[in-house]
């Protein structure tokens, strides 16, 4: 009877390797994907601690120094110091260095009040000069004299979280609807799929604008933020549902699903235990690759002035302010910093997504 028990000499074979573990082993070998992942972990960590990392509050306006170019700390002996700049008399947004006057750059300085991670009241900042007359604007200031670097970090809270929350919403809805549609079939399937096609057939941008115009213009930033997520998810779930439905259709005919039916398993449990878990590797890849669309979606909405409102900061809004006219861009190129941030984030997501896709392909090594 025991003819199939084969004594395995390989010690590694003793440790059961889960499918996730295999997935991770394959992912680990992809440098580019790991780089993307590390960049993203770093970005999201900084985002979570935006108030602490940024030297100033995003609403703080420095009336004397608008369109101030980036100020770079420099070494004076072994100290990092920040030079002092003063406006050039008679010229708009021109600044010159005041020789000899510097302040040392200090870490953990007290400054503007903020809430750490949105909860804990706090006023310690990672770095600063502690002197309002000698500020440190790492990426310069905007037209109102607000620190671009600080706004970039605060803005990332909106821009980066929109992607994550949006994906969560889209995918849970897409998986649920697609799973039901594919497994039950029949009329439910027909109606759901026609609805998906309807949503997908309307050009996305117009749909976004139409949906946005249904709501009043003067909403609070929080409301607008939620609204953007809902709008973007409303457009995104349809294509997700279609893909999940397709996968469900093929998984439904797999023999382990038949086996569960023969055992008398209920339909909802079959979907939850046997079908949806087998779409996960696809879903994770697709989610990673579509986060950038949500980030860019916010950018577009804010750029078209129907997104996040002043004085709140978001990457899209900051870019919109930068593009007031072309002259602004040549004179004050540092205002394009959010563009660079978007570029890095989108690229990191795509690297990670490509790597995940390769790792999810079990035929790859």
């Amino acid at each position, binding site marked *: 009877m025991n*003819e199939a028990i084969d004594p395995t000499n390989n010690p590694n074979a003793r440790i059961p390797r889960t499918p996730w573990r295999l997935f991770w082993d394959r992912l680990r070998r992809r440098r580019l994907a790991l780089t993307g992942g590390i960049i993203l972990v770093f970005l999201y960590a900084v985002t979570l601690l935006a108030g602490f990392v940024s030297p100033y509050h995003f609403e703080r306006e420095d009336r004397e120094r608008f369109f101030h170019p980036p100020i770079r700390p420099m070494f004076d002996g072994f100290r990092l110091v920040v030079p002092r700049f003063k406006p050039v008399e008679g010229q708009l947004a021109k600044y010159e260095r005041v020789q000899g006057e510097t302040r040392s750059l200090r870490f953990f300085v007290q400054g503007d009040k903020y809430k750490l991670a949105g909860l804990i009241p706090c006023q310690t900042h990672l770095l600063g000069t502690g002197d309002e007359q000698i500020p440190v604007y790492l990426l310069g200031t905007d037209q109102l004299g607000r620190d671009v670097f600080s706004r970039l970090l605060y803005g990332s809270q909106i821009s980066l979280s929109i992607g994550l929350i949006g994906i969560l919403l889209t995918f849970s809805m897409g998986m649920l609807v697609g799973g039901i549609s594919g497994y039950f079939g029949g009329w439910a399937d027909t109606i759901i799929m026609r609805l998906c096609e309807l949503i997908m057939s309307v050009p996305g941008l117009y749909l976004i604008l139409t949906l946005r115009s249904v709501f009043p213009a003067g909403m609070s930033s929080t409301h607008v933020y939620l609204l953007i997520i809902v709008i973007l998810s409303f457009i995104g779930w349809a294509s997700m549902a279609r893909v999940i439905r397709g996968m469900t259709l093929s998984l439904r005919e797999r023999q382990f699903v038949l*086996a569960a039916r*023969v055992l008398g398993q209920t339909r909802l449990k079959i979907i939850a235990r046997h079908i949806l878990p087998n779409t996960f590797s696809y879903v994770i890849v697709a989610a990673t690759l579509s986060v950038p669309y949500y980030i860019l979606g916010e950018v577009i909405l804010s750029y078209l002035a129907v997104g996040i409102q002043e004085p709140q900061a978001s990457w899209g809004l900051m870019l919109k302010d930068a593009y007031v006219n072309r002259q602004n861009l040549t004179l004050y190129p540092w205002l394009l910093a959010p563009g660079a941030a978007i570029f890095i984030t989108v690229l990191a997501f795509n690297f990670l997504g490509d790597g995940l896709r390769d790792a999810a392909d079990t035929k790859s090594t």
Partner: protein
Amino acid sequence: MSLLKVNNLKVYFPVKHGLFSRVKAHVKAVDGVSLHIEPGETLGLVGESGCGKTTLGRSIIRLIEPTSGTVEFDGEQITELSGGELRSSRRKFQMIFQDPYSSLNPRMTVGQIIGEAIDIHHLAANSVAKEARVQELLKAVGLDPIYAQRYPHEFSGGQRQRIGIARALAVEPKLIVCDEPVSALDVSVQAQIINLLKDLQVQKGLAYLFIAHDLAVVEHISQRVMVMYLGKVVELADSQKVCREPKHPYSQALISAVPVVDPDSKRQRIILPGDVPSPIDPPTGCVFHPRCPVAEARCKVESPALREITPGHWAACHLAK
């Protein structure tokens, strides 16, 4: 009393065409099949692809809804059960699948796969009892109990097939429908699984409906054999009778086409012309007549009934003696 009685079972699939999905025709996958299986017996079911053997196996346990006909299992009308009743009745009849690579959920451990069956029918009082039962089942199919922690991808095809058998056994069924259980396995492993199925049958008094295209395997494991062609039964008898003195010309051709290892075999080879016709538009009269080497004029018009040629030997052929 028979364990399973199938009476005039028909499974027609609609063929839809066009924008409004009008039903244009029907695929007569199973066309009026009757059979019975006694407790502890193995009925072999052979035929080529498209003959409806898999559909028949699946419709008997209502994985596919039959179009008409009745299935009586252990005194219960399976065809009349509602969804909930059917789910609880499923304990009594199980299935083993062909493809050991797709029949186990890759995201569940072997313990979870077998445990699910136990959970559904509440066959273990607690998790300790469940674990003990899983281990017992793994031993019963010749696998080391420590394998319960592992995932399907770590096993070879034969080992996976054993896990699938353990899953089916978990609910203590009386009948197992075996759908080509060895055809996807390596030759040297097939005998292990065939022997295991035979051992389990003796130990647990199981009945099998054994579906396969390999006549030698079917003859080896079955007491009786049924040959299907285009959704119909063409021959039914004790397995040795079917394989040694087949009455239906199709069975004769099928048996002569099996490659034999013995180079001195003096068997005459009958090579059938053409292919199996489409079940959407089957030939008139006897469905086998276009390929039949002995067909007569009446075979084209008159559909032969399954009749008892010699005691216990049934064939659906006008000319069988």
